[in-house]
C-alpha cells in the first residue's frame, strides 16, 4: 500500500484495528486523545466495541474482562492516567490476561504538563503494581515503529498471555510522519483461546484470578511466570538498534524521541572527529544486554527526557557504572541537538 501521512496517535488507533483489536476502553487525557477519538469513530465500523470508561481504573479493569473472554483489547492513556491503571495491570499479569496498554508520556509528576517527556521509564519498566512481575515494554521512535509496535504488542500479549505496554513519548503521539500499514510483523503460534478463556470451559470452567491464597501455590505460580515467561522473553524478545557503532569509542544510549535527537547530534560530533554512535533499546523490558558488552566503548552517554531513569539499566548491562554518564531535560522540555552535542563534548572532554 502507498504511504499515508498520519499523526502518531491516529496511526496507533489504526494499527490496533489492523491487529484485530475488538475492544477498547479509555478515558481522555492529553497528549493521547486522538487514539480514543480515532477508535470511537473507526473501531465500531470494524466490528469492535469502543467504550469511553468513567475512569482510567475502570478502563483497565474492562480490559481484564474483555481479555479474559479472549478478545484482543487495548487501553490508552498518558502518565497520571497510567499511574491510575497500575493495580489493574497487576491483576492482568497474575490472571494471565493478554492486553495492550498504550502509554503516551507527558511531563510529571502528577498532572505535570501536557508537553512530551520520558519520565515514565521507571513506571513502565518497574511498574507500580504490587508483587514480582515484568511486562514487555516496546519503545518506538517513529510513527512507523509505533504502528509496528502496536501490532506486535498484540502478538506478544497473546503468545505469553500477558499485558504488553507500548511506551511512546508525547512527541511520537503528536508528530506526523508517512507510514505504511502493510509492513508485516512477526506472527506467532498463539495458543488457542479455547484452552483458557472464559466461556470455553464446557462444564469444566476456566478461571481467571488474581488470588492464590495458599502460599506454596502462590510461590509456584510466581516461579512459573519467571521460568516460562520472563526468562523466555529475555531470551527472545529483546530488540535494539545500533547506529554508527562499528568504529565507535563512545555511545549515546537513548530511545524514542531522544534517540532521534542523538542521531542528529552524532552527525555534528562525527564532523568534529569524535567517534560516537548510538545504542537504541527498542524494548525497555527486557533490556538489551549484548550491545553493552562492546569493550571499545569508553563511555555510555545516556540521553533521556527525564533525570536519568535508564542509567541503572545501562550500568547493569555494561557492568561498570563509572562508564555511564547522563544528560537530559525533564518536565516536558525537549533537548536540542546542540545541547546534546555540548553535553557530550563536556562529558568526553572530561574523560580524556
Amino acid at each position, binding site marked *: 500500500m502507498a*504511504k*499515508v*501521512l498520519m499523526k502518531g496517535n491516529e496511526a496507533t488507533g489504526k494499527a490496533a484495528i489492523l491487529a484485530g483489536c475488538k475492544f477498547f476502553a479509555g478515558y481522555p487525557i492529553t497528549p493521547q486523545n486522538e487514539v480514543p477519538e480515532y477508535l470511537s469513530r473507526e473501531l465500531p465500523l470494524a466490528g469492535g466495541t469502543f467504550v469511553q470508561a468513567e475512569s482510567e481504573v475502570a478502563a483497565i479493569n474492562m480490559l481484564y474482562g474483555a481479555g479474559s473472554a479472549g478478545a484482543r483489547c487495548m487501553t490508552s492513556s498518558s502518565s497520571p492516567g497510567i499511574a491510575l491503571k497500575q493495580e489493574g495491570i497487576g491483576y492482568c499479569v497474575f490472571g494471565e490476561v493478554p492486553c495492550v496498554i498504550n502509554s503516551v508520556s507527558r511531563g510529571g509528576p502528577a498532572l505535570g*504538563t501536557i508537553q512530551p517527556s520520558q519520565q515514565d521509564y521507571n513506571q513502565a519498566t518497574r511498574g507500580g503494581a504490587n508483587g514480582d512481575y515484568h511486562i514487555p515494554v516496546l519503545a518506538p521512535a517513529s510513527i512507523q515503529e509505533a504502528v509496528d509496535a502496536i501490532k506486535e504488542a498484540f502478538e506478544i500479549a497473546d503468545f505469553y498471555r500477558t499485558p504488553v505496554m507500548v511506551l511512546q513519548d508525547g512527541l511520537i503521539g503528536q*508528530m506526523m510522519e*508517512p507510514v505504511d500499514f502493510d509492513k508485516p510483523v512477526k506472527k506467532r503460534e498463539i495458543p488457542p483461546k479455547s484452552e483458557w478463556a472464559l466461556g470455553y470451559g464446557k462444564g469444566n470452567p476456566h478461571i481467571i484470578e488474581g488470588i492464590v491464597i495458599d502460599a506454596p501455590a502462590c510461590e509456584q505460580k510466581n516461579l512459573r511466570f519467571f521460568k516460562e515467561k520472563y526468562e523466555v522473553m529475555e531470551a527472545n524478545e529483546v530488540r535494539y538498534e545500533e547506529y554508527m557503532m562499528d568504529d565507535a569509542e563512545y555511545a549515546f544510549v537513548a530511545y524514542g524521541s531522544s534517540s532521534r535527537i542523538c*542521531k542528529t547530534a552524532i552527525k555534528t560530533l562525527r564532523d568534529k572527529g569524535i567517534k560516537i554512535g548510538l545504542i537504541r533499546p527498542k524494548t525497555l523490558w527486557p533490556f538489551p544486554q549484548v550491545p553493552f558488552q562492546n569493550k571499545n566503548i569508553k563511555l555510555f552517554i545516556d540521553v533521556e527526557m527525564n533525570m536519568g531513569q535508564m542509567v541503572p539499566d545501562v550500568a547493569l548491562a555494561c557492568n561498570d557504572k563509572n562508564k555511564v554518564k547522563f544528560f537530559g531535560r525533564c518536565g516536558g522540555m*525537549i533537548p536540542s541537538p546542540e545541547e546534546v552535542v555540548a553535553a557530550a563534548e563536556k562529558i568526553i572532554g572530561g574523560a580524556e
Partner: protein
Amino acid sequence: MYLDDKRVRIISGHYGSGKTEFAVNYVTNLKKLSKNKVAISDMDIVNVYFRSREKKDELIKQGIEVFDSSIGSSADLPAIPKEMLVPFVDKEYDYVVDLGGNEVGTIVLRRFREHIDISEVDFFMVVNVFRPDTQTVDAIIEQKERLETTSGFKITGFINNTNLVRETSAEDLLYGDKLLKEASEKTGVPIKYTSYVKEVVKDMTPEIISKLSGDVIPLKYYMREVWM
C-alpha cells in the same frame, strides 16, 4: 501573489494538512512585502503541540503581531482573546488567521462573524492528498463542504500542500495537483498556491514548477525540528 489576496486570509483545512506551517511561512513572507501592520492569530484550540504560538517570539522579532489562544502556560486553557477581533475591523492590518483542523476548527470564527466584512476575506483550504481523509476528489469536496457549512464562509482557494514530510518528491506534488484540479473543476474553487519545502523536494525543477497550479511557493520548516 501575497498582496493580491484579500486583506483577511483565513487558513483552514483538514487536520494535519499543514495549515500552521503554511500560515507561518505565509505571514513572514507577507510581512516582507506589506506596508500595513501584519498580524497572525493562532485560533487552534484543538491541537496541543505544533501550534503557531510556539513561534511567537520568532514572529514578533520579524515585526509581526501574534495573538494566541491559551491562558497561561501552565493551565493551557483554550481561550479566544478579544484582541483577535481588532485586525478583522481595523483596515490598517493585513491579517492571517490560522485555524484548528477540520470543521470543528472553524467554530471559533463564529464569535467574530458579525464583525467580519466577507468581501475582505480569502478563505483558503489547505490540502495534502496523502492525509487519509482527503485522498480522493470526492473526499476533498466533502471536506470543503463541511468547512463551509460549519464556518459560514465559502472557500475562495485551494492550497496544494501535498507532502510526505521528508519523503516528498516533485511527483507527489504533481499528483496532488491532478486531484485538486479535478476538485477545482467540479467546484469552481481555484488553486491559489502550491507549497513545498525546498530543502526536502530536491527533484523540483523549473519545468515541474511551471506545470503546478497557482503561485508555487517554497516553504521552510518553522514547526518541525531538524531531527523530526
